[in-house]
């Protein structure tokens, strides 16, 4: 045993996780697609400079270029994916809609994670709160969430629109609605993990030198429950995107001048027999985004599991 061989670069565990993550093919493709779609909606407006809400009534009902190649229909390179019945460019709408859909997804996911982690840690760490908080979680789980979410949309739409303006108001409403109806699973998982970690020796050691509860949670418990939180973050992102588009699809989401993927799909269903592309493109955007997020979650779960990682 010589000293020269044991000198190694210090690696954090996250590099190991990344190495394991890289071996999951589906997760890597999912990550690549998520980065692509995020760049597409963020940088898209700078490259594709047509305003999504601009009406171009002379060029209404254009078909996409790939239909134009094979049949004799109205199409134009200035609107490669076609236009809708008011002459709004579909590509620009997809970019703008993606911005809103992804923003809703990420924000709602963060809200539900913060809520879930907060309640889970409180319930797991403070025994006095455990019974009460978990009963509460069970109660919320027994609520019919989608109907209640629909009712909430209807009830608070007008007051919030009046208070924050149409776009911000609805955004706040949808994001909070999804956030407060989806934290329960995170809370349960975090509570279970905190209960197990609380009994470990390093927590006892930390307590014996007089670490206060606040620091105990932030320094010792939270870093150790990061992995289940990250996995449920991916699940939360996927389900938040789906819930938002489902709300828009049922006509209870954003108003029609603010396109989201679900909203574009909903508006196009009436004429999908003639213009199937207006339904298929936003639907593909939603499905592929959710699919890639789910694959990332799958890969993360494998990568964060130390039993698999060593192999």
């Amino acid at each position, binding site marked *: 045993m010589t000293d020269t061989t044991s000198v190694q670069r210090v690696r954090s565990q996250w590099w190991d996780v990344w190495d394991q993550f890289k071996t999951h093919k589906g997760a890597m493709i999912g990550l690549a697609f998520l980065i692509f779609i995020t760049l597409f909606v963020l940088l898209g407006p700078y490259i594709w400079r047509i305003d999504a809400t601009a009406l171009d009534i002379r060029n209404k009902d254009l078909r996409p270029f790939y239909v134009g190649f094979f049949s004799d229909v109205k199409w134009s390179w200035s609107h490669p994916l076609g236009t809708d019945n008011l002459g709004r460019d579909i590509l620009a709408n997809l970019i703008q809609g993606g911005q809103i859909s992804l923003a809703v997804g990420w924000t709602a996911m963060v809200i539900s994670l913060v809520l879930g982690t907060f309640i889970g840690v409180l319930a797991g760490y403070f025994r006095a709160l455990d019974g009460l908080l978990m009963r509460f979680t069970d109660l919320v789980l027994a609520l019919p969430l989608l*109907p209640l979410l629909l009712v909430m949309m*209807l009830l608070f739409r007008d007051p919030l629109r009046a208070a924050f303006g149409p776009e911000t108001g609805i955004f706040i409403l949808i994001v909070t609605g999804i956030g407060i109806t989806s934290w329960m699973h995170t809370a349960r998982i975090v509570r279970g993990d905190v209960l197990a970690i609380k009994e470990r020796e390093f927590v006892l050691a930390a307590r014996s030198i007089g670490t206060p509860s606040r620091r105990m949670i932030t320094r010792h418990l939270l870093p150790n429950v990061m992995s289940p939180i990250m996995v449920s973050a991916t699940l939360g992102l996927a389900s938040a995107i789906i819930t938002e588009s489902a709300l828009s*699809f049922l*006509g209870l989401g954003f108003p029609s001048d603010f396109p989201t993927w679900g909203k574009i*799909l909903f508006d196009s269903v009436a004429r999908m027999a003639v213009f199937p592309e207006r339904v298929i493109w936003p639907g593909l955007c*939603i499905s592929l985004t959710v699919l890639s997020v*789910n694959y990332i979650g799958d890969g993360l779960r494998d990568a964060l599991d130390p039993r698999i990682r060593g192999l």
Partner: protein
Amino acid sequence: MLTFTIRRLLLSIPTLLFIALVIFLLLELAPGDPMAEMPLTIPPEVKEKMREALGLGQPWYVRFYLWLYQFFIVEPQYWIDALFGTDFAQGAQRIISFQSRSPVFDTIGERLPQTLWVVGMSYVVGVILAIPIGIISAYRQYSIFDQIGTLISMIGFSVPTFFTGVLLIVIFSVHLGWFPSIYDTTLEVTDWTSFKMQLRQMAMPVFVLALYNAAQISRYMRASMLDNLGQDYVRTARAKGMTEKVVVLKHVLRNSMIPVVTVIALGVPQVFGGAIITEQVFKVNGLGQLLIVAIHGNDIPMVMTLTFIFAILIVLFNLIADILYGVLDPRIRYD
């Protein structure tokens, strides 16, 4: 087991009461006034009378108590009367819809068969598909079948049902013309032709929901089979010289079904919720569509009753799942 069941049944009463209260108070905040559509020429005192006729005059706790009374006492009395020809109800006030002015439960009774047919059938089809797929995927882990099964089930629960539905309509009813895109409720099955018609109009909504359900259940089935295939008793069974068929289909399958059965039970109420979207896509006038129409129309008694029925389903199937778990797995003892 019996005491556990009774205790859980008793516990579910306060749970349901609390849920009813939450839904009621949420609806109480509704800014929409059911009288908003009335002409402005109606004098205020008449308007006040009309509000009272709708049952809006009292404070909320009186109305909440009244609703509970109607839901739990009056409505069952009417059901018993209808079944046995008795007269318990004696013309008591039922829960009346604001929109149609007819008893809420009559409308629900009209809509229930469509939902049960389409949604129930899709769940059954989903389960029947999911279990063999899960078994084969686990037994031949990482084979081509497993990989394709994994991909399809990933797609199944990633693609939202409103997109699969719309896609199927574009392909199969617009381009190919095989299936009708709208569910015709007035169709009565009397002979072979109308039966085929019924099958054709059910095909797409059932397929959409079945894909979604099968995707989730087959993942559980696969995981549960994999857990069991690695256990010692499987090696013992093989060492005793049992055939693979007996080992997998008798020993492993029976043990793997325990968690899967509870997952299937827990999924039933969610199916009713998820059906809201599918019913909207295929224009099936079932319970989900009724709820959407009621929400848009500010029909508070209808929304309240429907949402509460969904809540009862959730609580009930949670209970069923717990009891099934105890019955199927002798290691679980609740007492």
